């Protein structure tokens, strides 16, 4: 095979291990995990993921020394039907290795964190046996994500795409029989189903894109498709546009973009490591990876590029505004993730693939850090709550502390004292003043926040700035949307910081919150380090990551006429754009201090933004009623149509009329009248009855000969002899 000749380094042949090590890990945990104990289960899972990271690093080194040439490693024959020949090949190039490093690197840290987190989580939820299942799912996710990023064809990518979707479903519904507060309910399970269905709509788009591609290109393998893309584009420009736009539906589903983003906030029902790994750092970036991977197609369809960029930019701003009005610590981060994914999608849509991938990597660092720190906070509050519960039960006379239940935002500010009210450890209104109780997590959270807000010199500053600069150069309107989104980003993160860490504890549990153990904080420190230094990957002037990715993504420089202020370049960094975004971010944090920091929230106090903003804040609180609008526009009519189809079309028309009357009636008429009466009774039966009758009559005639008189028989013999003799004589 021609491809095998290009395999230069023997290290490349290790690439299947990135998939099979996690698979091995999950098999070990599945088969022996029951007897191994929690520590060993977690260690096996983390080791499987860690070894995959080691392999990824080796691949990266091999690629670096080999000059960055893409290598395809044939692994197995997969589908071979006629002209369709899709082998399972691994593609090792700078883009896929970047993804592998992020997935396995961040994945390993989150696995280690989860050893500590799930240890407590399964105890708070009182089902210790579920510990092992969690790590089996996590390893399955790593394996599937690796298939996604390492596949050499759209079909292989799709296998991973569906696989991570399955893992997402399984892990969102990990505590499937309760809601996020542990009360018996189908809420978590419904969230999992919602994620599955929203993704299914996206996957449908992806599938159509893939099938169209096979129809037009005769192949779904990257090399072949990209090789003839230009020819096809010249012959049928509509095809490329259709493929890229259908692919955008898939991207919108997986990477939570408008209009399919609604599943991601609900996906926070999963355990926090899942939110960090799957719903922030890796899986949701698959859409960004898909667009970056399909760069030859998108480059040929500028209209599709613009639509992708616009979807990303609008999502970035839209989700950022919702994040401002959320009270759940993880929901804020979820909307933040949607918003940041919007940044990435906008970047890769504009053709700034390197900037988008850069932001993908840095975002994986700091958003994983933020989510895991939030998980640490939640655990801290849970610990405080438990501590309190024990304390209260020992001193029965102690008054119940005022609690803010998990009530809809509209009821906020009416603290209820009901006995059955459940404490919500994720509600920021229950927090406050945690800085002193959980100092390590506090500093980690600050680092994550600064990185996300884009403050110099943290990782987010460099990557976001690069996106903003590219936007300013290519599409000013997208630049404006993204800049406003960046402002909101800094604002809601500032709001979160003041609400969670400063002021006075608004709940007794927050007063007694406890810091998390080392197994949780150490991975966070590593992530914090990456969040600080991640910008070094692609510093202006060096552009290491851009150069690295250029081996895979070769782009012709656009000749755009730039305004004078945009032409200033300090080694690729525009000081004005950078200054503007930094000033915006600092301004937003300052405003958030004015509102939330200067005068901290009191227990049961309404959000200070509620009064001045009025209905706008109500909209933000309620996620702009998108779920409600979807419910009215899509779900209810859909349910009505299904009911109509089920009751009227299926049951009454199809079953009662068509089946019972038409088919069964016709069948009965044919069987009874035609076949039974005419053919069977009057045809076949009559014929054979006639035969029987004939035989009977003949035999009745012949029976007379058998008269029982021996002498008459003898006479017959005599006549016979005479007849024979007579014949012989006469002859």
């Amino acid at each position, binding site marked *: 095979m021609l491809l095998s000749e290009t395999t230069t380094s023997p290290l490349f042949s290790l690439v299947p291990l990135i998939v099979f090590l996690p698979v091995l890990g999950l098999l070990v945990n599945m088969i022996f995990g029951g007897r191994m104990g929690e520590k060993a289960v977690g260690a096996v899972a983390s080791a499987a993921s860690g070894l995959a990271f080691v392999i990824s690093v080796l691949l990266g080194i091999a690629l670096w020394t080999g000059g960055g040439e893409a290598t395809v490693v044939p692994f197995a024959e997969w589908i071979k039907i006629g002209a369709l020949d899709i082998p399972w090949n691994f593609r090792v190039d700078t883009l896929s290795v970047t993804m592998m490093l992020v997935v396995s690197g961040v994945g390993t840290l989150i696995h280690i964190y989860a050893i500590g987190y799930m240890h407590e989580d399964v105890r708070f939820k009182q089902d210790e046996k579920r510990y092992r299942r969690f790590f089996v799912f996590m390893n399955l996710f790593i394996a599937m994500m690796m298939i996604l990023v390492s596949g050499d064809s759209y079909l292989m990518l799709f296998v991973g795409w569906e696989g991570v979707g399955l893992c997402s479903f399984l892990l969102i519904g990990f505590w499937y029989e309760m809601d996020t507060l542990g009360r018996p309910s189908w809420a978590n399970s419904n969230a999992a189903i919602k994620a599955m269905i929203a993704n299914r709509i996206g996957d449908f788009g992806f599938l159509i894109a893939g099938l169209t591609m096979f129809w037009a290109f005769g192949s779904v393998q990257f090399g072949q498709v990209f090789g003839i893309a230009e020819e096809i584009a010249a012959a049928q420009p509509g095809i490329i546009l259709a493929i890229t736009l259908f692919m955008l539906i898939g991207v919108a589903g997986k990477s939570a973009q408008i209009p399919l983003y609604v599943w991601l906030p609900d996906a926070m029902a999963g355990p926090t490591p899942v939110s960090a790994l799957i719903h922030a750092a890796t899986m949701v970036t698959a859409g960004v990876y898909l667009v970056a991977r399909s760069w030859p197609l998108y480059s040929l369809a500028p209209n599709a590029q613009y639509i992708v960029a616009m979807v990303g930019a609008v999502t970035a701003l839209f989700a950022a505004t919702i994040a401002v009005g959320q009270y759940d610590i993880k929901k804020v981060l979820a909307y933040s993730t949607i918003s940041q994914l919007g940044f990435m999608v906008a970047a890769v849509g504009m053709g700034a693939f390197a900037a988008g991938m850069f932001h993908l990597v840095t975002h994986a660092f700091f958003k994983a850090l933020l989510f895991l720190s939030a998980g640490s906070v939640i655990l801290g509050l849970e610990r405080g709550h438990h501590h309190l519960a024990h304390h209260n039960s020992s001193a029965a006379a102690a008054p119940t502390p005022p609690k803010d239940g998990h009530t809809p935002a509209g009821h906020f500010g009416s603290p209820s004292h009901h006995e059955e009210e459940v404490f919500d450890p994720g509600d920021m209104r229950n927090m406050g003043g945690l800085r002193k109780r959980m100092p390590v997590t506090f500093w980690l959270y600050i680092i994550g926040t600064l990185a996300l807000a884009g403050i110099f010199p943290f990782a987010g500053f460099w990557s976001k700035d690069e996106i903003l600069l590219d936007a300013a150069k290519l599409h000013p309107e997208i630049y404006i949307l993204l800049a406003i989104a960046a402002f909101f980003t800094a604002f809601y993160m500032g709001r979160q910081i003041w609400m969670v860490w400063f002021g006075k504890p608004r709940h007794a549990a927050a007063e007694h919150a406890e810091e998390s153990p080392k197994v949780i904080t150490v991975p966070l420190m590593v992530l914090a380090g990456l969040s600080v230094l991640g910008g070094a990957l692609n510093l202006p002037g060096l552009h290491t990551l851009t150069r690295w990715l250029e081996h895979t993504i070769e782009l012709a420089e656009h000749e755009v006429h730039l305004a004078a202020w945009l032409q200033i370049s300090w080694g690729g960094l525009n000081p004005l754009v950078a200054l503007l975004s930094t000033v915006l971010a600092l301004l937003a944090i300052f405003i958030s201090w004015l509102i939330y920091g200067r005068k901290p929230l009191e227990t049961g106090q309404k959000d200070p933004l509620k009064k001045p903003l009025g209905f706008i804040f109500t909209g933000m609180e309620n996620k702009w009623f998108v779920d409600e609008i979807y419910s009215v526009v899509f779900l209810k009519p859909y349910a009505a149509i299904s009911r109509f189809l089920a009751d009227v079309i299926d049951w009454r028309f199809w079953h009662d009329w068509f089946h019972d009357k038409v088919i069964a009636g016709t069948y009965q008429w044919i069987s009874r009248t035609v076949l039974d009466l005419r053919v069977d009774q009057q045809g076949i039966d009559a014929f054979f009855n006639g035969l029987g009758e004939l035989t009977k009559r003949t035999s009745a005639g*012949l*029976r*007379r*000969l*058998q*008269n*029982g*008189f*021996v*002498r008459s028989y*003898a*006479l017959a013999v*005599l006549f016979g002899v005479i007849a024979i003799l007579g014949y012989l004589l006469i002859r």
Partner: protein
Amino acid sequence: MNFGSIPLTYYLVLSAALFTMGALGVLIRRNALIIFMSVELMLNAANLAFVAFARQYGVFTGQLFVFFVMTVAAAEVAVGLALIVAIFRTKHSIDVDQMSSLKG
């Protein structure tokens, strides 16, 4: 030879007469024993015809056949008498018209 002057025709006429008597006996009489004897008569009529022809043409074949016929006839008598005795034991009669169980 005293008999040499008797022509073949006489023997054959006698043979035919005996055979006819035998055949009539079988057809007319009802007593199984008589029928049996009539059958013997027919066999011997045939024997007579055999030896007459044998003598006429000076070959022994016919005479040899007579021996066979006599042997078979003897065997037949043995079987036939046994049957008659068996029938008599069950029916207390040897009237052949009574033996009509196989009537159709």
